[in-house]
């Protein structure tokens, strides 16, 4: 028997494109705007959300039959907050440098609507394995968009990728800067992230007409 049935594969692949949490469900936009000025920050955020959402979905799914419905949102919040604190503590002890980058985003992970949304919509009603796949799939869909936005913002805004100067040196005027290229400071501001998200949505919907809603 294959490890993943067709349905299981769809749980992972759907959120990557046709049911992407950011571009289709329009969730998690706030963090996508706030932290994508650098590619490194986008990648770190994507990895942390992957862990928190995968584990969180498993925990909520395991507890789904014993959670009192009246306090289920609080229970979900406690689970995600506890996971985020654990990740942060472990990173502080074993990957101190990375934890300093991550600590800024801890609050953002806890308040990320995609995580609470998946707990509420999927993990509370499905088995552990499928919930895990759903968590991983949605986090990956979120991460892919974050990395795309981070890539363009850092490249066009600072002329670097992961801190490496890829377009030349803006001060000594080498590379592209030698022929008059200037960094676009607007790319580093949050509104530009929204425009990049808009462009991704545009590209995605023009490639797949089925995604366009009928009025």
């Amino acid at each position, binding site marked *: 028997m294959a490890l993943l049935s067709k349905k299981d594969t769809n749980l992972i692949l759907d959120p990557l494109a046709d049911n992407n949490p950011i571009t289709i469900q329009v969730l998690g936009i706030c963090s996508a705007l706030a932290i994508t*000025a650098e590619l490194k*920050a986008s990648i770190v955020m994507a990895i942390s959300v992957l862990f928190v959402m995968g584990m969180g979905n498993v925990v909520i799914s395991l507890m789904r039959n014993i959670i009192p419905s009246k306090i289920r949102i609080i229970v979900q919040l406690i689970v995600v907050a506890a996971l985020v604190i654990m990740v942060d503590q472990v990173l502080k002890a074993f990957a101190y440098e990375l934890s300093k980058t991550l600590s800024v985003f801890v609050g953002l992970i806890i308040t990320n609507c995609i995580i609470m949304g998946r707990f509420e919509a999927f993990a509370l009603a499905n088995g552990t394995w499928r919930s895990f796949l759903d968590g991983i799939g949605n986090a990956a869909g979120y991460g892919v968009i974050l990395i795309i936005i981070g890539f363009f913002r850092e490249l066009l805004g600072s002329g670097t990728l992961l801190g490496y100067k890829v377009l030349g040196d803006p*001060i000594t005027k080498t590379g592209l800067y030698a022929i008059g290229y200037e960094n676009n*400071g607007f790319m*580093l501001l949050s509104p530009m992230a929204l425009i990049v998200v808009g462009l991704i949505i545009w590209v995605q919907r023009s490639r797949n007409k089925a995604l366009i809603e009928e009025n």
Partner: protein
Amino acid sequence: MAINTEKNSYTVIFAAIMVVIVGSLLAFIASSLSEKIGENQRLEKQQNILYAMGVNENVDEGSVNFVSTDKVAAEFEKYIKEQLVIQGDKITKDDNAYLIDLKKQETEAKAGNVRKLPLFVGEKDGKTYYIIPMRGKGLWDAVWGFMALDDNMVVQGVFFDHKGETPGLGANINQRYFMDDFTGESILDNNRYVGISVAKGNNDPINERKDDNAVDALAGATITGDGVSAMIRQTVNLYKPYLETIRAKK
């Protein structure tokens, strides 16, 4: 038998058990990792102090690489000759001065007590460096750093860091292109202690002018820049009496 999860008593018991489990789990993780985390923070402080006086492992002109953690304790011993604690007129030597928490000292000062000011005297290639730690407010949270001065009150190097400034904007105060601009600037203007301001639009992007007590600001990070300026000004004022004695000795 199915559990009735709708009963109030069940909800209360569930909440209580959950709080106890999650609380103990987090407490266990925090306490078992606290020693390792504390050690990381101590090494980081030593790395930052050494970085300010130019002891680092930078490979090119853009990188910020500290002395590696396995070597930092030995290097700190080698380069930092004296650690002083200044408290009012009293100056004492203390080998753990780098562990003084500036935030706590600020609270002490607000409560009317005299604060402890740590200062590190480093020596490299026959030259003496006076390294001052500092702490201030950025846009979102704390910013802090170390500034190495020579006995003419000219900056020999700085290190800045922050807790939660905006990535790509204010967070860039810990980047080389910003920190390197401080080297060569004087904190004195005609014998007055003015510090160094992070100035917007001073038409000096590569900071060629070293006599204007200003470095070029980070685009889009006005408040973080103002925070760094204020932090330097306030710290220089606090250390002024001691800095005067250094200049007098010269």
